């Protein structure tokens, strides 16, 4: 289902979020939906209100007072301020909306920041480099494609070999900075088998636009079979150094890159 266009991707994800597991994706969708509805509502109300008033009180309009009594005059000093009550009322209202919205999302933040649910999470180490990704499994096997079982939390520990990158899988709503010398972490659950794209979200040099990799979500059984066949000899060989980016899963990207880079 993720082959659908990304612009409707959010909608599909929302539908999918009807499931039971709370994942970063479901958290995001739920919150995003509420924000979107409220945001549109507030935006429309405020814009309509201000336009309405501007037009209603246009010069020469029926509602506009004749004459210049109490209009500003050149050279006057500003006086105190009227309209304080109304101002504070609207301000208070908007403040309450904003504050409660944010407070409401805080529990979600705690959830996403916390450990993944259950204790069978798969741990994968992610290393970003110019310009690709290397995924290392608990058995030491390293690959340039991330394969994970469906319906099982995956915990990523991320770092960079060179510059600042950012790891993101838009469809699964997972994202983390990838910083040299630092470790960050993130987790996600992919509920259905399928293929997703991993992108880099921080400008990292000439190959940034092409710094993507595949995330393959497999049926749990198929995954176990595949995993059992791997060892730390790294058939999907992890490249080392900035130059030798070929000879691994990112060849397509690099082929394109070769045409683009000077």
């Amino acid at each position: 289902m993720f082959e659908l266009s990304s612009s409707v991707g959010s909608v599909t994800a929302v539908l999918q979020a009807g499931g039971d597991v709370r994942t970063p994706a479901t958290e995001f969708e739920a919150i995003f939906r509420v924000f979107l509805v409220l945001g549109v509502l507030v935006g429309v109300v405020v814009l309509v209100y201000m336009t309405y008033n501007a037009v209603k009180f246009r010069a020469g309009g029926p509602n506009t007072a004749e004459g210049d009594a109490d209009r500003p005059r050149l050279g006057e000093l500003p006086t105190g301020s009227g309209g304080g009550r109304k101002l504070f009322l609207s301000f208070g209202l908007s403040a309450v909306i904003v504050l409660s919205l944010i407070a409401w999302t805080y529990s979600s933040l705690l959830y996403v920041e916390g450990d993944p649910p259950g204790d069978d999470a798969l741990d994968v180490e992610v290393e970003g480099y110019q310009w690709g990704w290397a995924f290392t499994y608990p058995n030491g096997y390293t690959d340039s494609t991330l394969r994970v079982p469906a319906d099982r939390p995956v915990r990523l520990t991320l770092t960079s070999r060179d510059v600042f990158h950012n790891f993101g899988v838009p469809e699964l709503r997972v994202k983390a900075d990838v910083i040299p010398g630092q470790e960050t972490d993130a987790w996600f659950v992919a509920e259905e088998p399928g293929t997703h794209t991993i992108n880099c979200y921080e400008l990292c040099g000439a190959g940034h636009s092409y710094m993507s990799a595949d995330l393959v979500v497999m049926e749990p059984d198929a995954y176990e079979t595949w995993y059992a066949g791997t060892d730390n000899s790294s058939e999907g060989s992890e490249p080392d150094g900035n130059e030798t980016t070929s000879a691994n899963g990112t060849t397509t990207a690099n082929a394109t890159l070769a045409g683009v880079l000077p």
Partner: protein
Amino acid sequence: MTRRNRHHERAERDGEHDEPRVADGGHERPADTDGGHERSPTPLEDVGAVGRAFRVEELPPLSSVARWFVTTNHKDVGVLYVVTSLFFLVFGGVLALLMRAELWTPAADLLGANAYNQAVSIHGMVMVFWFLSPLAFGFANYMVPLQIGAEDLAFPRLNALSYWFYLFSGLLLGASFFQEGAFSGGWTMYAPLNVPVYTPELGATTTVLALLLFVASITVSSVNFLTTMHRMRAPGLTLRKLPLFTWTILLTVWMMLFAFAALGAALVILTSDRVLGTTYFAAETAGGSLLWAHLFWFFGHPEVYIVFFPALGVMAEIFQTFSGRRLVGRKWFILAMVLVALQSFAVWMHHMFLTSINLQVKTLFMITTIGISLPFDLMVFALIYTLVKGKVRFETPFLFAFGALALFILGGITGVFLGAVVLDYEFRGTYWVVAHFHYVMVGGVTGLVGGLYYWFPKMTGRMYDETLGKLHFALYFVGFNLLYFPMFVAWETPRRVFVYDVSLLPWHQLSTVGGFLLGASFLVMFYNLTRSLWAGDRVEGNPWDYTTTAEWAVPSPPPLENYPEGTPTYARGKLEFLAPSAVRSLGRTGADGGTDEASTPSTDGGTVVRDRSSAPVVPETDFDEGGHDEHHASHASPWPFVVGVAAFFALLGLSGVNEGGLYLVLLAVGLLLGTVGFVAFGLEPFHVPEMVAAERWPFAGVENAKLGVWIFLASDVVLFGAFVGSYAFIRVAFGWTAWEPVPHDPFPGLVNTYLLLTSSFAVVLALVAAKRRSRAGLVGSLVVTFLLGVAFLVNKAVEWQELFHEGLTLSTGVRTSTFYLTTGLHAAHVVVGLLILLYLIARALRGGYLDDDRPVEYFGLYWHFVDIVWLFLFPLFYIF
């Protein structure tokens, strides 16, 4: 009498103008206090014809090209800023259109990867640094002195210097494209992509140096504006009564002073990494990457308000004028802005929610972030309620201001999304952010464009074409939304990429169409404004109804001296122009706390708020021994331009010093020219009269130049603070206790501490000697100070020499990098101090400073500051 502008119906206003008023709506004023609109069409010639001062005559007429290179007048400089910033708008706009053209298809076709990355990076920098703020500061230069009733800024030559630094920094940026390519790591310049291992182009270094020069420009101008606004307000114009535009500029400049100092520190370190080979931001340095993010965003977040506040001020002025209503809740509006300005320094980590900072810190910054958004709600509502019961006229300036508010509201709402950290996690690095910040920032631009139309008649004396103005707005507003709204829909596109998912194609194409429409709308503006310069209807006074601020009470364009026929004062609760004799007596009454003491001009009691002398008061003028007529200000100096050129050469040379050859020549030429320029600057007689009576709270007791020095030192504190903070940050990441001081022997450092402390003492003696009018004492003490300073440097050189011999160089590691660079920055301050000392000694030998010892005093402030810094650095780098 002023001719009314064609846009205004006169009838409804007549009949209530009988009471005598001094400045009553700007259309008709009694002839005796009218600010001089019975002038000839070219006020400058007029002034010259009167032969008021030979200084003025030195300023060539407006039509002369030479004038624009030597002028120091705030209005001229304002025009230069506006025009130059519009040039950079075109530059940044072309880069943007190139990107949008590239994004027409989801594949890479038009631009290569490097070209695209350069376009993104330089577009961002140009728009934020070289276009947005300078446009606002063009208005500020022009309007702030007029609004507060000053004749010029406090330091006119420094103002010109700011401008030339600004222009040449922009040219330097342009030059960087021709040195293997400009910087391509994004306007945020994240580390370690910003070091030569990953961006080896010489041009990338030049880009960094261009920014550094820009920071210098901003710092000089912040000092200037702060001194001006704090010390040169017309009597009765207390801070609370300042016009809103001036208020926003005041807060902007305070934020600039500190924020840009932090950016300056970051850029100095980066330059050193790129040119000298230190390793602060190298990938191997623990914490180096995060350090950059902290430094950059400590500057970067206030920067958001720095670019937005002036637009807010313009919007507030326009809303008031075009609705004929005073801003609702003005007091709260100002308070809200003050809160934002303060808090802007406590939200930077919200740009780093996805880094490894811990949950507690995230929560804290989430709270401060939401907190800072709330005052904006209040400001938005205040603007909206101002329209209610108004008499709203939909003329071009108002359309733009109104449109700006609408765009800002959308930008604000989408910003709340980002404030929710869980959402931010997903939006980070995507087009959601791109759309959001364009709505906010280009929303601000929209307000400023409104300001351009609003003040165009004031600055040129001509009216723009209203129909074309409306057409511009229509194209602009449609183009804008077509450009940026689709980005919200296509938000899953990563930022700064030129290939994207095919499914997003329609949205990106819409956006590109909008971009070109937006660009085209500016062609209409350029055509309209250029043509109106020659063909527009003449506006001699005030084309708008219901203006309140003082710039509208003088002719359009204002005469060179702003108020040649009467000094503005608000002492009696409204704007009046006093004849010079009345001003003298006013000066002797109190005008200190915004009370109306001055409303009864008398010579009896009252605090005397006059300066020690009404003779030349700025150190810039301390060579002015010629004793020419002190009532007339100077307006021309070629030296700011020369120093600007020198900076350009020197920095271009510095970008390639490691290449040698031509670059070394450029560097040498730049340094030489700079020395000549600065010395000539110092020697030039240049007269800036200080206001006789002014509102000066809270700096009534400090004179302009001293306040300027204090303010500059405040920014220097931040600079050193950022250096020491960086050191601490890296040391913590490294392991605090595992770190050993670089010099194994603290003894040379200890000796240097004594040397500096003694030299501070010698400066005090110099001042005492000057007060006693002892030339020998003065020269002697200054020479002792100088020798102690030299000894400090020699001692340091010997120490460094030994360390180098042990193989401890700048690039050995972070320990040596931080040691050499931080103490080196301090040593550079010592060197600058010694150069100033040389100048002082040369003048003292010829009998200078005995009558006016203030330059010695101000130098002392600087020198003590440099000593105090050492007292912090010594233990940090030699003992612990």
